[in-house]
């Protein structure tokens, strides 16, 4: 049973890892970023490419992926998202288009395939990342076998969550972000540069997705479509937790992860996912604002 709970915890931490960035962009900016999954994918490819071309391992890839995806996020915010503030469903549609563009860019190796050139590590195929030896195998704690890599994921998620919490609740920038979540016009009236804060927030959220991608690459195959299903899971976590509530996202990721783990142990993975969807639907219907709704707006 302990092992099942541990697997649930690690599933939950993966959900949270993806949802963390979404919680910020969706919660703070009212942007449904369907390209978030592609940010995860880009992060995973950064790991692949840095491993192939620089010979570095997964630890180096974490800051690298954060920088790359944050810059990409900044670019998307500047070009597309900026024009769509206040049009929630349109952000969903436009970023879906962006998601397709990013996927195809990786698949077509930025168009180089048309010129017969090939970049090792890109393209439509599957890629794998080698995990450093220190993260392989299992630990024995209190008579239970615990997978090292899963433990690593849980730790990274915890660190990122704490960092995000600290940024949001203990820094000036975070206070500004929270002011924008509550009421962006009033925040602007108080002298907050909403455009700038929004751009940086979006970049930060994208960067978190990039780190999530690095973590994913360690235990999943890396391929151009890998992000699509993740973005859905991430959204369900954010919506269930309550838009704009970090605590809500953490708890709902934990709950969904445990449900997934326990049901999967009893039946199979497919049904477990189905049950997760069912739970989310029920919660949205019962509490449309999510488990931890912010008052305001």
């Amino acid at each position: 049973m302990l092992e099942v709970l541990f697997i649930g915890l690690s599933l939950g931490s993966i959900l949270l890892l993806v949802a963390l960035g979404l919680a910020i962009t969706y919660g703070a900016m009212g942007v449904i970023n369907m390209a978030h999954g592609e940010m995860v994918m880009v992060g995973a490819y950064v790991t692949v490419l840095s491993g192939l071309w620089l010979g570095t391992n997964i630890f180096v890839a974490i800051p690298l992926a954060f920088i790359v995806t944050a810059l990409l996020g900044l670019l998307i915010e500047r070009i597309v998202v900026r024009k769509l503030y206040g049009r929630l469903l349109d952000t969903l549609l436009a970023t879906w288009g962006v998601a397709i563009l990013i996927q195809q860019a990786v698949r077509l190796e930025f168009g180089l395939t048309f010129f017969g050139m090939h970049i090792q590590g890109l393209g439509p195929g599957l890629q794998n990342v080698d995990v450093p030896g220190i993260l392989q195998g299992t630990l024995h704690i209190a008579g239970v076998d615990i997978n090292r890599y899963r433990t690593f994921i849980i730790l990274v998620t915890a660190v990122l969550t704490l960092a995000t919490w600290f940024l949001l609740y203990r820094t000036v920038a975070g206070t500004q972000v929270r002011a924008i979540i509550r009421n962006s016009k009033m925040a602007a009236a108080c002298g907050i540069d909403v455009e700038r804060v929004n751009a940086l927030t979006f970049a930060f959220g994208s960067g978190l997705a990039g780190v999530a991608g690095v973590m994913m690459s360690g235990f999943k195959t890396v391929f151009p479509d890998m992000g699509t299903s993740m973005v859905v899971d991430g959204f369900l976590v954010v919506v269930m937790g309550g838009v704009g509530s970090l605590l809500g996202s953490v708890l709902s990721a934990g709950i969904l992860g445990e449900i997934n783990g326990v049901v999967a142990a009893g039946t199979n993975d497919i049904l477990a996912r189905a049950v997760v969807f069912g739970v989310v639907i029920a919660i949205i219907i019962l509490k449309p604002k999510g488990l931890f709704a912010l008052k305001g707006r």
Partner: protein
Amino acid sequence: MSSQRRIDWAIYAGFVILIMLVPLAMDPFWLNRIAKYLVFGMLGIAVALSWGYAGILNLGQGLFFGAGAYMLAMSLKLASATSLQQGSDKPVPDFMLWNAEPGAKTELCCITKASFLWLPFQSQWFGFAMGVILPVLMAVVVGLIVFRKRISGVFVSIIMLALVLLVRLVMIDAQPVTNGFNGLTDLGWFKVGEFEFDPYIVPTYYLVAGSLSVVLLAARLLIDTRAGVILQAVRNDENRARYLGFDVPAYQTFFFAVSAAIAGFAGMLYVIVSEFASPTFMDLSFSITMVVWAAVGGRASILGACIGAIAINMISATVSEAEGFAEAWKAIIGLIFVLVVLYLPRGIAGLAHDLIDRAVTRKAPAGSVALRVHDASSQLAE
């Protein structure tokens, strides 16, 4: 307004005549392809109706399409020649034999755990009726729960999205009854009396084209009825409509169900022309793709969304023929979509509407300015 409306109807009539003339110029292979695209056009109508007119962006329209498709496909599966060759005098789908319970009789009643569900589908018309009834039932149940609770906007989208993924997983998991991932293939032909609708013959094309025309015109008439106008009022300001005394959830549920019925019907037609049903109909990407078609064509125009769906599919079929260009085309679609959302929120139909407006205004500058302002404001309200 009357001249605009006349132009509107003339365009609709032109479209119907155009699709009726297609068989004159096409070989059977392309005719079959175009029939599929017309089915997608019908899906565009369903999306426009719920998104453009009811203001409900349904990210799970594939649920209704898939439900319609599976209902008819079950009947057609039992009608296929292979189902009769499984060692029983009654038809049994081949995949059930592979999943049979040990020692079970080779009969629909009991060969796998839930195979008895297939029994009524021995009648093709039962499957045909269920292809519309089931989507409508689902839409009514969802609609009554969701709209009564005043859930709106993005939450409805997310509920539908989660629902379609949920159903998709259940369908895949229920392998002994649904053939899981593989879906239902090797189907028989749809029959009316003695006539068989071979997907590659002209009458099958007309079955689809005729259905599309009827659905298109019916949808156009529906939005001009009192209920349609009230629905648009709800879309523009839900609370105002409520204060005026209208039963808002009833209107929303009704149009949601109409949209589901159209999608379910489209699913059945798709099965007739493509001879398979698969869980991919309930993939997230397919449901979003439908929305893309409607957005490019014009979310608030029934014909626009329909033409958007047909045009995008026609172009991608033509372009994908070129070696290695299929993937690049996907990227172009993504780009077009971003550009449409950013710069052309009302789609191609909106653009055409403006152009026609301008032409009409030039002829009669007096009265139509006010109309245009009114028109624009109602479009902006969204």
